């Protein structure tokens, strides 16, 4: 049965996407070719060109620093009080690079190969090869900035391995790699602020895109301190605004992470690709109660030394150390002997869910599995374990009140990273000319599943090395006259109207109560395991809840002041629209792929069954207006180098 038949009535199919603009030729040469073909902008002219960047994480921060350094006039916005607080700062584990410092057979080609395979063959070969190639340069750049990576006694860089790989290619700074890489980019950005090349606007949120002649020409923002709605025009706009995992309410994302910048662009014509591809991370601290506002991830690097297990018997409530060795099921080591505890994230997450569904989960509610360090402590000694993971152990103890040196950690999967996002071509340009999208905000190079330590790599590759090359070409090739007053005033008017609408509802339910309820629907029906029936149910529930939101939400305070309820309300309103698209995307993709497990599509062992013949494409969705069916555009994926095979980690 063709996918379209089962979802008839929820979307229309449009023209396929013919060209993602990657140069032809050998994969090793494509990026070099593209860079050479790009038109350059004369340094003297760069000063006259203005680029707006939304977001200051690894992608936005590194892009701002690099474009400022190149001489462009950059205006950069973030909703936090300082660029240093972007959520990239919370990434714990590490960053991959194909340096082969360990002589374990690593290479650019191997990193490329494993990333394409790990993404379950839903990413573009050209992009992934470029990412793997640039990975080596990223480490050099960060070391030059003084990022304090872990070192060996000989003074050289240390490495470790990470989920989904068998080589040691992950560079790390204890459990705070994201923090250190972000501070490196932030400091480089601050240097450009001091030099006058970058103008910084913290506590500002982008609420709309200024469009003229079909091009992105600026943004409308709200100053979160005094509520003033302002506009800024530019020659190009870059979105580096992160992912949308907070659509689930409970996730590992920062509380402020939202989809608004991307969604506003989507409504102006930027295609939204693979929205249902959400990464569920296997090693998070389980939920403890109704008060819970977010979930905390424990770095995946813990799986290097921690062993995952549950009791063999369902309903075994003994304390972990009262359960003898032969009554424990080290299920990852049992089912996947060659990868063991280091299987990729989607596999580890699903396996955890399965054992909990069998009633063998541990901790409150039975939604947890043990991550046990007893063997590692016996083998390496407590000091070594503490040196490697000390801060993670402390964090765990603070949150749960349990000491993981004495009793195994409890972990459970949680929403972590979104592989979907705005569709971009090889140049990282969206379907709106002049609108570039980088980092987690684009649909990215990760495919249907993201391997460990690859998000930091992509954010920095996009920001330091890819975008600064491709954006020149756009600016050099297009004459961009000043933006007409009407385009600006229309965009501002849209923003003001929406704010007034949210404030005037004056209902009886808080924004958070709606967000929680939406998140619950999404986790239940569009989470780790999805069924056609459940997804159809979600498509009944979401529009009804959205309607209720627009009639019953209570937003306190005024628009012209610091108003955190108003900020949240606008974001949740956009999450409602995105949620519906995510469900439609999940419904139409009647295959299991990466973290997206369709119960109807599994093999006899219960492993995910991909369907390359029918779904070997990127699903890029076009906004067709409020209440109208979205239009599906397919970008076919061709694999010339890594032949699609069933992934097996057994």
């Amino acid at each position, binding site marked *: 049965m063709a996918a379209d038949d089962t979802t008839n009535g929820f979307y229309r199919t449009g023209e396929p996407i013919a060209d993602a603009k990657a140069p032809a030729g050998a994969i090793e040469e494509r990026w070099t070719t593209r860079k050479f073909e790009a038109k350059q902008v004369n340094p003297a002219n760069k000063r006259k060109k203005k680029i707006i960047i939304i977001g200051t994480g690894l992608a936005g921060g590194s892009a701002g620093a*690099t474009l400022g350094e190149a001489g462009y006039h950059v205006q950069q916005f973030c909703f936090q009080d*300082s660029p240093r607080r972007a959520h990239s*700062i919370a990434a714990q584990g590490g960053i991959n690079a194909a340096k082969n410092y360990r002589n374990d057979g690593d290479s650019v080609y191997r990193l490329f190969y494993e990333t394409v395979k790990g993404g379950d063959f839903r990413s573009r070969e050209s992009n992934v090869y470029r990412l793997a190639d640039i990975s080596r340069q990223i480490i*050099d750049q960060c070391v030059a900035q003084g990022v304090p990576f872990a*070192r060996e006694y000989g003074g050289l860089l240390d490495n470790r391995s990470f989920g989904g790989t068998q080589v040691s290619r992950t560079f790390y700074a204890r459990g*705070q790699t994201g923090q250190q890489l972000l501070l490196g980019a932030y400091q480089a950005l*601050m240097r450009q602020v001091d030099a006058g090349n970058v103008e910084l606007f913290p506590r500002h949120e982008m609420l709309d895109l200024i469009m003229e002649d079909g091009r992105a020409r600026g943004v409308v923002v709200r100053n979160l301190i005094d509520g003033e709605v302002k506009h800024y025009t530019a020659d190009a706009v870059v979105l580096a605004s992160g992912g949308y995992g907070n659509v689930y309410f409970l996730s*590992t994302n920062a509380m402020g992470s939202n989809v608004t910048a991307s969604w506003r662009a989507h409504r102006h014509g930027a295609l939204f690709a693979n929205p249902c591809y959400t990464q569920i991370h296997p090693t998070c601290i389980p939920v403890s109660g109704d008060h819970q506002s977010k979930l905390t991830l424990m770095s995946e690097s813990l799986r290097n030394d921690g062993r995952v297990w549950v009791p063999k018997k369902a309903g075994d409530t003994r304390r972990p150390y009262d359960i003898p060795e032969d009554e424990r099921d080290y299920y990852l080591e049992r089912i996947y002997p060659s990868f063991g505890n280091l299987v990729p994230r989607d596999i580890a997450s699903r396996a955890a869910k399965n054992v909990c569904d069998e009633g063998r989960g541990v901790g409150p509610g039975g939604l947890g599995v043990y991550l046990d360090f007893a063997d590692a402590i016996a083998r390496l000694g407590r000091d070594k374990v503490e040196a490697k993971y000390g801060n993670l152990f402390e964090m765990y103890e603070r949150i749960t*009140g349990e000491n993981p040196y004495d009793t195994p950690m409890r972990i459970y999967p949680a929403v972590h990273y979104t592989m979907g996002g705005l569709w971009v071509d090889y140049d990282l340009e969206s379907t709106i000319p002049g609108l570039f999208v980088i980092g987690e905000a684009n649909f990215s190079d990760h495919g249907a599943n993201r391997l460990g330590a690859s998000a930091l790599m992509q954010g920095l590759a996009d920001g330091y090395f890819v975008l600064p090359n491709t954006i020149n070409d756009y600016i050099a090739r297009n004459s961009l006259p000043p933006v007409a007053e009407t385009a600006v005033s229309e965009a501002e008017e849209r923003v003001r109207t929406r704010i007034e609408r949210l404030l005037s509802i004056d209902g009886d339910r808080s924004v958070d109560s709606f967000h929680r309820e939406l998140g619950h629907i999404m986790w239940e029906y569009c989470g780790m395991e999805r069924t056609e029936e459940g997804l159809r149910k979600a498509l009944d529930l979401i529009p009804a809840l959205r309607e209720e939101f627009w009639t019953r939400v209570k937003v306190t305070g005024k628009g012209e002041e610091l108003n955190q309820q108003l900020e949240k309300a606008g974001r949740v309103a956009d999450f409602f629209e995105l949620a519906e698209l995510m469900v439609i995307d999940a419904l139409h993709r009647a295959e299991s792929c990466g973290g997206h497990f369709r119960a109807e599509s599994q093999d006899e062992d219960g492993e995910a069954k991909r369907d390359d013949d029918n779904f070997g494409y990127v699903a890029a969705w076009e906004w067709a207006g409020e209440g109208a069916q979205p239009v599906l555009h397919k970008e076919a994926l061709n694999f010339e180098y890594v032949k699609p095979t069933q992934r097996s980690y057994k």
Partner: protein
Amino acid sequence: MKLTLRVWRQSGPQDKGGMVEYKLDDVSPDASFLEMLDVLNEKLIASGEEPVAFDHDCREGICGMCSLVINGTPHGPERATTTCQLHMRKFKDGEVIDVEPWRAKAFPVVKDLVVDRSAFDRMIQAGGYITAPTGTAPEAHSTPVPKPDADRAFEAAECIGCGACVAACPNGSAALFLGAKVTHLGLMPQGQPERWDRVVSMLDTHDEEGFGGCTNTGECTVACPKGIPLDVIGRLNHDYLKATAGGKKR
């Protein structure tokens, strides 16, 4: 748990502000301090009052956005813990808890518990970086860093820029924040060429921003959620003296 909260409410920078008392009945000991405030805010919204504005984002103890002086201590009673990682099990049933914003001249109150910490960004702009343009940086292994130096640099680099050190300091000094950055960059070979200019420029900016002088009371390290040690201030002073009196600065 039952709690009585006394929360600083201030509608804007010009408002005088004052403590307002709220009672909460059903607080879970597993909730974080910020989740407890979420519960309070839900209650305030339901009764038509304006919720309390406070800064927070990652809620994982790393972004440095959360603040709050709790019972007179920045980030509350638990050592080496940010407010977002402080859990209600650390408090007693029936306790009265005071919640206030950071207090320092260089951190003006924006609203309720939200303060403006942008002075920290301006200090970093004054030299808290290594000048390394994006391009072809030297091969990473071409610059070995002795492991003890790398480890100490990392410990200093762990600073999350939350400003608790300033809030705890009787002088409102940011010496710990500054010392942490100067130490991080000053211990790496990459940071040597700009070492002396950096310390002078950052310290000058520190003073211009209205932070007070350091008198080594050590309150900052007690309040620091990342345990940045006091000796980074020693390094800051040492480098500053060497740069100025020692004539190192170009």
